[in-house]
Each structure stands twice: as structure tokens, then as C-alpha cells.
């Protein structure tokens, strides 16, 4: 894989250029050669002095959009639960910082990552397809192939290989909660999640780090992504798509559909384990019927199978209640005994209501033409909460161990 450069000016035919050397001179350049004609070369300037680069290691580079990161931010990336030192696996920084030597934010540790990241970008071997330049030139900038508003995560493969069963994709949901949206196609129109909580989480990186040494510890999903390919598709492709809110809701609700099926199986398993000769059959039938309802299982998903922050549940519920009141849909919930999960119980019921209204009663959204824009923007905000919630569900979902009844 290399970078593609037009055969001639204005041409829509491209030659592939592959990285062949690094030229050290007054200015430093990565030299790429035409894979069909090695004598034809182009160069890309590496604007820094090429010194103090750590001995060769291999890197993996992933590109992200993040609204909150600034050019001055270089964030050390660690993983939670690592058994290897401080768990550092790489660095996050903006592509803008790679082209502006005068305002370099790199220190002696991160600079090597900048160099190896730059190398991967000019090799064209990152998570993202490079842009196709229009101009024919002998010298290009990194920004001819990558948008400089993007950020990159450069991982040291030698470090990640030391981690047991390392799968970077499993960390993408947590990264999303810090505002990092995975980019595989720079041409796609991007929808940004503007939830204040995400901004706060990103700012917390600075609050929790010492000045000049930003550090972020990320956690992975408990779910195995290999068992459910949709999770990978969602976080690496669908999440960035700027589509209609109905599609967007449907896209994310799939996760609930997947997991409440697991909840169903597990809850039935519990009933079977607890079954006793004395239990009347109709009681068991009643229990199983209840478990079979989507509403009950969403409730169980949020309150029993995941660890959702109660405060988050409360503010999300408020948004949903405001929305339903605007379209005159009652949101009264069954009174329960006081429960520490009250907010989550309410949230589960409201999410199910939202789902039902979007599917069965969508026309109700258009009954009240006044304030239609408010309704739209509120619905978009609700979806931002929903996306965050789905990430939290994926990150914390765990099937409790079912213990056999004591005899």
C-alpha cells in the first residue's frame, strides 16, 4: 500500500508511490518511488530534525476526529489492567502538530512516535485511506494526503504484543467517550457528538494529568468483538456517518437488540436453575412471559447487566421526558419501591418508549408543527446521549455467573 499520485496534472489516473528511503539533508524528506517506474520519485518533507529517534520499532497508526484536542496536546495512551509497567502503548496527537516544527509539542519520549507515525502515514498504511491529490508535483505535504484537523494514535507494536490478547478495536468504544471518532474515509461527512459529557471527559484528561504530561488510561469492552462483528462495524464505520436520526437510532439500537437476547437466555437459565417441584407451573410461565418482554429485558440490561452511572441516567431521562412532553406522550412510570437504580429503571422504560414511538407512532412527531426545529434538535441531543449510553453498555456488559440453588 502506498500513496496515489495523478499520472499527469488533472488526470484521474493514478500511480502508486511507495516509500523507499529517508533523505537526511538540510531538510529531511521521505522519498517515495513510483511502483511502476522506480526512477520517478516524489518527496514529502519531514519538518523536524531527525535526531533522538528511538531504535527502530514497528508502529500501527489509527486516525480519529476529535473536536476537543488541540495542536499542543500530546497524550500518552495507557491501557487499564496492564501487567506491563505503566501500560503505555502509544501516543495521541494531531496531524497539525506533525507539520509545524516551530510549535512542536513533542518531548524526547513522544518524538519517536511522531517520527514513526509520520512514516506510516507516508507509507499509506494507517486505518484510513489517504486522499488523492489533484496536483502533480515532485514535492508533497502530508496535508495533501491527510486532513490536518485529524488526530492520530500511534501504537508501539512491541508494547501491544506484550499485552495478552490485545485487540485495539476493543478500546474504541472508550475512546469514543473521550471524543475520538474512528476515521477510515476522510471524504465522508462526519457527524460529531457534541454531548457536554464527552467534552468533560476529554477535559478530565488534562485535569487528571500533570502539566505537560497528558496521559489517558483506556479500558476495553468486556464483550468479545470477535463473537459479534457488528460491534466493530458500528464503532469503525457506522458511528461517524452523518445520516437521518431514524437511521442513527436504529443503528445503535441494534446493540440493545443483540444484548437483550443474551439477557433472555441468561434469565431463562436462572429460572430453570431455580425451578423447584413446589413451584406451580403457571408461576413459572408468568415469570418466563415477563422475561420475554423487551421492556423487562431492557430494564434488566441497564440495571443488572451493566454499570451505568445513575446521574447520567437521570439527565438522559430528563431529556427524554422533555421530548415526550413536547409531543404530548405520557411518561408516567409504574411506582416502585425506592430503589438505588430508580433513574436507570426510568431510563430503561423511556428508551423502550422512544423505540416504540419511533417504530409504531412516528407520525405523532409531526402533529405539532410549531417548534419543529426545537423538536429536531432535542431529538438529535437525545441521540447523542443514546450513543454514549450504548458505548457504556458495550463497555460494562457482563453476564453474571449463575450459581446453582443451594439444596
Amino acid at each position, binding site marked *: 500500500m502506498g500513496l496515489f499520485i495523478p499520472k*499527469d*496534472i488533472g488526470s484521474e489516473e493514478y500511480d502508486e508511490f511507495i516509500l523507499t528511503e529517508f533523505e537526511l539533508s*538540510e531538510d529531511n524528506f521521505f522519498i517515495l518511488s*513510483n511502483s*511502476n*517506474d*522506480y*526512477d*520517478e*520519485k516524489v518527496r514529502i518533507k519531514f*519538518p523536524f530534525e531527525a535526531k533522538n529517534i528511538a531504535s527502530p520499532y514497528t508502529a500501527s497508526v489509527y486516525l480519529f476526529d476529535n*473536536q*476537543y*484536542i*488541540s*495542536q*499542543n496536546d500530546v497524550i500518552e495512551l495507557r491501557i487499564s489492567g496492564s501487567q506491563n509497567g505503566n501500560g503505555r502503548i502509544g501516543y495521541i496527537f*494531531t496531524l*497539525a502538530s506533525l507539520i*509545524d*516544527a*516551530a*510549535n512542536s509539542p513533542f518531548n524526547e519520549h513522544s518524538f519517536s512516535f511522531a517520527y514513526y507515525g509520520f512514516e506510516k502515514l507516508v507509507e499509506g498504511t494507517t486505518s484510513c485511506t489517504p486522499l488523492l*491529490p*489533484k*496536483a*502533480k*508535483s*515532485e514535492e508533497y*505535504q502530508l*496535508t*495533501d494526503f491527510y486532513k*490536518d*484537523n485529524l488526530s492520530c494514535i500511534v501504537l508501539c507494536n512491541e508494547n501491544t504484543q506484550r499485552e495478552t490478547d490485545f485487540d485495539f478495536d476493543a478500546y474504541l468504544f472508550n475512546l469514543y467517550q473521550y471524543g475520538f471518532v474512528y476515521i477510515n474515509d476522510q471524504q465522508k461527512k462526519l457527524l460529531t457528538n457534541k454531548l457536554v459529557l464527552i*467534552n468533560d471527559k476529554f*477535559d478530565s484528561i488534562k485535569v487528571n494529568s500533570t*502539566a505537560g504530561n497528558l496521559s489517558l488510561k483506556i479500558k476495553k469492552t468486556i464483550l468479545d468483538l470477535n463473537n459479534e462483528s457488528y460491534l466493530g462495524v458500528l464503532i469503525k464505520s457506522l458511528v461517524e456517518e452523518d445520516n437521518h436520526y431514524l437511521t442513527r437510532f436504529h443503528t445503535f439500537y441494534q446493540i440493545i437488540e443483540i444484548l437483550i437476547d443474551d439477557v433472555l437466555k441468561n434469565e431463562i437459565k436462572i429460572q430453570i436453575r431455580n425451578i423447584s417441584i413446589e413451584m406451580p407451573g403457571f408461576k413459572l410461565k408468568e415469570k418466563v412471559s415477563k422475561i420475554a418482554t423487551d421492556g423487562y429485558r431492557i430494564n434488566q440490561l441497564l440495571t443488572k447487566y451493566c454499570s451505568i452511572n445513575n446521574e447520567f441516567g437521570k439527565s438522559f431521562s430528563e431529556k427524554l421526558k422533555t421530548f415526550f412532553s413536547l409531543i404530548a406522550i405520557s411518561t408516567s412510570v409504574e411506582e416502585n419501591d425506592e430503589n438505588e437504580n430508580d433513574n436507570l429503571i426510568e431510563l430503561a422504560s423511556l428508551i423502550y418508549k422512544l423505540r416504540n414511538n419511533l417504530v409504531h407512532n412516528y407520525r405523532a412527531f409531526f402533529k405539532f408543527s410549531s417548534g419543529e426545529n426545537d423538536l429536531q434538535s432535542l431529538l438529535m441531543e437525545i441521540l447523542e446521549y443514546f450513543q454514549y449510553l450504548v458505548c457504556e453498555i458495550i463497555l460494562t456488559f457482563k453476564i453474571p455467573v449463575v450459581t446453582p440453588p443451594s439444596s
Partner: protein
Amino acid sequence: MDITSLNVKSIIIDYRIKAANVMVEISIGDYLKIAPEIIDKNDFQRKIVIKSKIKEILREDLLQGCSIPPVVLSIKNESLLQGINFEKFNLNQKNIVEQAFDEKSLIIIDGLQRTYVMISLMDELLKANKEEDLNAFFGRTIRAEVYVGLDRLGILYRMITLNTGQNTMSTRHLMEILYFDYQTKGVENIKFVLDRDDSPVRLNTTEFVFKDTLDGFTSYLEKSENITERTEILDNIRTLKNLDDLNKDVDLFRGFVLLYQKLLITLINKTDDWQFVSDDFDQTEFVIKSSPFGKSTIEVFKRSQSLTGFGAALGHFRKKIEFSEISHMIDNISTSENDFQYVMKQIIKYLDIIRDKSKKIGNDQRYFFRQIYQLLFDKSNDCYLLFDKAVETAFDVTRDDKLPNK
């Protein structure tokens, strides 16, 4: 005459670029007597490696005796052109063209790649001692068009419209070509130096980094503080036309440099040559997170960000305010409440905030400087000639337009 085969065939006048186009025929052997030298004389044209497959095809064709499109040349020696009226140029003056060939005082506008292939074929035949083939090759005739009377702007214009090398140039590169003479001769008491991007600022008002100065001037022409590396051919042509138009009676580059030098000297004087003292920034309203943008007035205002901001602001006022009027305004810059030294500390603080928050530090700092100058020289707003108000408002505008909301 060494070049015996040169034969001037016809003359066509090019009114667009004010030059005579002289068609000549010349043997390849004679052309190759001058070619290696004139290749090096073309400061304008970057050397491009021709694709080897195409080179191979052209080499084979040349060996078989193919005809090739005329190479386009221009007379480089300006003294040869003195007193020439391009509109009346005729065959009686053909000795000027012959002299240019004799003196090898030509540059290649179009045909560099063809020339490279011819030279390499000659080298190859010489090396292989293929005398017969070499003589046949040398004896063949090619055509050349020689432009008589092109000034530097015209040469560039023709190079670009001929799509030389199939490459476009960044506006900065165009400016480098147009003004490279200044690099050696300077402007009045100003010398230009060729420092690297990250070299320390020279702390005087008489030495400027040539690249930064050209960037400032380019910002003036393009009315934008951001220097784009990549341009389309039409952008190149538009820039040259623009420059041709603006340069009618005055040397704009010279005027721009002198005006900026005046601003620099004025600010140094008005700020009493302010110098950074770390105590001023520690635990005060001016606390900063990174090292200061500059440690003196001169260091702050000699950096590229200020020069390009100044250029873009002047571009904004182009055709509305003359350089002479701006010069007069510079004399009258004052403050409303806070003294100049206080404002310098504010500038350092604001540039530090931009550095900390910005997604593109250099661009946003340029934008900040642009706002300062635009506000300072705009008679219609409250900040007119008031340094403190202009700086404060410029930061507000920069924060609103460029930095994250939070």
C-alpha cells in the same frame, strides 16, 4: 560564431507578454553545445526526473530521427535586450538572438525534459563510441522558439501557461523567483538572510529572513495570512496578473518591506524595547503555560506570524489605503488606557492561550496578528490606532472564530 547551424526563420510578436517570438532552427549538435549550461541557468524551473519509460521511448525515437516540438527559450542577458522595442523587432536584429546563443545566455522555458533526454543520449553514444550514430544525431535539426524581451514576470507567465513540467508552483515559489535578486542585494539598509524555519530570530531591524518576508508579501497579495503550499495553475496566473497590475508604477515588494521595518522600529520605540521578565508572568494575571512567543518586542514582531498578519491586513485595505497613509498611521499608534509595555505582556498571554487551545497554532496566531493590524488601521472602528484596544479586540475575535467554545 561557434553555433554555425542557427537559422532564424520567422518572428511573431506576442502582445500579451510584450515580447517577440523568434522561430529558429538549429542542429541538435549545436543545441547540445549550449544545453548543459543553460539548464543550470534556469533558476525558475525545478529539475524534474522524467519518467524512465517515457524517456526510453523518446530516446528510441530520437535515435530514429523523429521530429520533436520546439523547445522554448528566452534571452537571459538583460543588457542584450536594452533599448529593444519588441513591437518593432525584425529580422535585421537577428544578431541579438545569435549573440545570445553564442554567449549561452538563454534559459529554457519549455522543453527541459526533452533537453535532458538529448543530453543523456549524447552521453550514451559518446561512451559507447558510436561515432556514426552520434554524428547522425548531432546533424539532425530541431526547432526552437526564442522569446526576446520577456521580463521576469512574463517568463513566469509563459512558463505557467505553457504548463512547464506539468507542475504548478506555490505562490511562495513564484515570489522566490520574482524577487530572488533582493535576496542578494537587499532593500536600502535591509539585508535578507536564509535562516531555517526554526532558527532564532535575529534581534535587529536590518536583517530579515527572506522566506518570512516573502510570506508576508504573499499574504498581502492573496489577502490571506495563511500560506497555501498547493495551488492550481489558474491561481498562479491570477497572482501574476494581480502583481503585474499592482506593480505598474511602484516596486511593491520594496515598499512592503520598508513599511514593515518602520512598524517594527516604531513598536520597539513605543514599547521602550520591552523585554520579557519571567517574574512579570509568574502568579499574575499574565501567567503563561509555555515558553513565551517572544522575549522582546523585536522577537515578537519579527516572527513570520506577525509579518503574514501584517501582509493580510494590508491586503484587506488594498486599493483603499495607500502604503504612504499606513506609514503615517504607524507614526500615530498610541494606547487608550494601558501602557505599551502592559500591552506587550497581554500579547504574550494571548499568544500563549492560542498555543494551548488552538487546533492549528501557527494559523491562529497569524489570524490574531492580522486582526490587530486590521483593527489598528481601520478608521471606522473604535480601536483605530489604539494598540491596547486593538490587541484586546483582536484576541476576542480570534477566540470566538478559532478557539473551542469552552
